């Protein structure tokens, strides 16, 4: 903004020309925003109060859809439970893993760039391919079971035992952590070495340096990754449909909320009901995000109130 203020202000006609040019530059996005985001959001709100099968025009039914999803949808309860179970484990674990990898990549070592590139490879693999690979890896006669057997342990039946299918999905989610790791690494790079030096001179060991300097200064990055993780994990779909199919096999243990919405919208063409489900999912994600931001004041360290390192 400072740059803007120091700019020489031209005459009125130049300003108007600039304004017109500016609006023309952003016009493609404004059109896109209106057609593919603003309109659908309003439409889904409207549809959520209707019964709509596409074949016939939507028929207003008031709050019936919402009433049904609260009181009369057993599959939804299962899907919500599964999704929360999944997110509660997957999000923190993935955050920890990405942070650990970023710390590793931030080390000074020869050829670290090569390791960085290799760490990113799992994130290049398409999600569907990743899920198929894990189907092979965790297969009862696959390599992971082989390792379990070799160690004398009973191999979990990942895809036929409802108690193990979600852990399998979570494992799959933990594999491609490249983007979060890069975000963490960028955050780490922004912490000036001088701060850690100062801490070292004050006698802080590496462990203390991490807890007192690195981690507090990294909290804005953790917040960012946490919010993205929550938004993303509540919408898990690709991996779940490859592993559990659209019924969430075994025994609906991998039936996720997104799958439930997908089935109603595009299999049963209950667009009205699916819209209501979608609205509730968005509200839930929004509430969670606000909740996280609300707690942020307590644990996120902003540079303004920087304590001496």
């Amino acid at each position, binding site marked *: 903004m400072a740059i803007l203020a120091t700019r020489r202000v031209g005459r009125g006609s130049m300003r108007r020309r600039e304004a017109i*040019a500016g609006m023309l530059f952003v016009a493609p996005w404004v059109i896109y925003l209106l057609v593919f985001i603003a309109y659908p959001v309003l439409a889904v709100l409207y549809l959520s109060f209707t019964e709509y099968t596409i074949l016939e025009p939507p028929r207003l039914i008031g709050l019936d859809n919402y009433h049904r999803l609260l009181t009369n949808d057993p599959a939804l309860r299962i899907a919500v439970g599964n999704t929360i179970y999944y997110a509660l484990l997957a999000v923190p674990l993935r955050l920890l893993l990405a942070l*650990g990898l970023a710390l590793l990549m931030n*080390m000074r070592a020869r050829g670290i760039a090569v390791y*960085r590139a290799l760490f990113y490879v*799992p994130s290049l693999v*398409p999600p569907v391919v990743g899920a198929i*690979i894990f189907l092979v890896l965790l297969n009862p006669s696959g390599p992971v079971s082989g390792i379990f057997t070799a160690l004398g342990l009973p191999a979990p039946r990942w895809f036929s035992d409802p108690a193990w299918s979600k852990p399998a999905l979570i494992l799959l989610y933990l594999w491609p952590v490249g983007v979060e790791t890069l975000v963490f690494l960028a955050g780490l790079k922004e912490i000036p070495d001088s701060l850690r030096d100062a801490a070292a001179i004050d006698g802080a060991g590496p462990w203390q340096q991490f807890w007192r300097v690195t981690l507090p200064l990294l909290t804005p990055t953790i917040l960012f990754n946490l919010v993205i993780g929550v*938004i993303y994990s509540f919408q898990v779909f690709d991996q779940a449909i490859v592993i559990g199919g659209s019924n969430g096999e075994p025994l609906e243990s991998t039936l996720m909320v997104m799958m439930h919405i997908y089935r109603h919208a595009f299999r049963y063409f209950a667009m009205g009901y699916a819209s209501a489900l979608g609205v509730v999912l968005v509200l839930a994600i929004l509430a969670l995000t606000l909740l996280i931001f609300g707690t942020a004041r307590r644990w996120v360290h902003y540079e303004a109130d920087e304590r001496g390192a």
Partner: protein
Amino acid sequence: MAHLSHSEASPPLAEPATPGLGRARSQRVLVSLARHLLLLAVTVVLLLPFYWMLISALKETSQIFVQPIQWWPDPPRWDNFSRALSYPGFPFLRFFGNSLFYALSVTVGMVLMSALVGYGFARLRFPGRQVLFVCTLATLMIPSIVTFIPTYVLFKQLGLLGSYWPPILLGLRFSPFFIFMLRQFFLGVSWELSDAARVDGASELRIFWQIMLPLVRPALIVVGVFSFLWTWHEFFIPLVYLTEREQFPLALGLFAFKNQRTVEWDLMMAASVLATLPLIVIFLCAQRYFLQGVSMTGIKG
């Protein structure tokens, strides 16, 4: 927690600068060795699933599921690839071409759109700019499933359902992310350059195209690579909006194959390699821009 403790390995910078001491040097060599062992171990674990895909693509199905584990395909069956590519009912070459078409179309659109719009937000003042920018970022919070239902109806009414259009048009929904990123880049470019050109009477479009765009080339590459990757990965959109198998991208074709030909793991793995390799190649070519790009999208805005 195990990962956190590794930070201990990074030495305090105030290492005693006493060169020549044999003990200090051998200690440094040891630390360096330990770091490489650690990095290597983590890399091996991370890449194991990837390696398993590669070797499984060269095995017979019975060799994939055999105890003890076969770590090397013996003999490597290269014909898995040709068999997968000529599999009746699953035109994998066609899927590959479709993936390429979707990914390239979205990439071109995304680079153009995010450059134009990012430039408008960064360098031109117009009424409502701030509000529009905040709205743009806010759309990133909207889960796609919500917009997909009305969009489905819209495409159906326009007769575009089952055409090549939905994956391309909806692929652009990640735009705000890249608009934001390019805005940050454009904000960093010197104002004297564009002011001088303006005084010389250059049009805004010309300033954008001939002066500014070349300056943010690395950022454009990052936008392009990410758009390509994410469109290639896309599964949900094709699943919902495509009806004809001839239009499937690889991700969806592979899913269909998996559902109907569950037992032919060798061919499934060969096709999986086919669906992954182009991304590896592109990533390796553009790798050095990545870190820069992510730090610019930056969290701190």
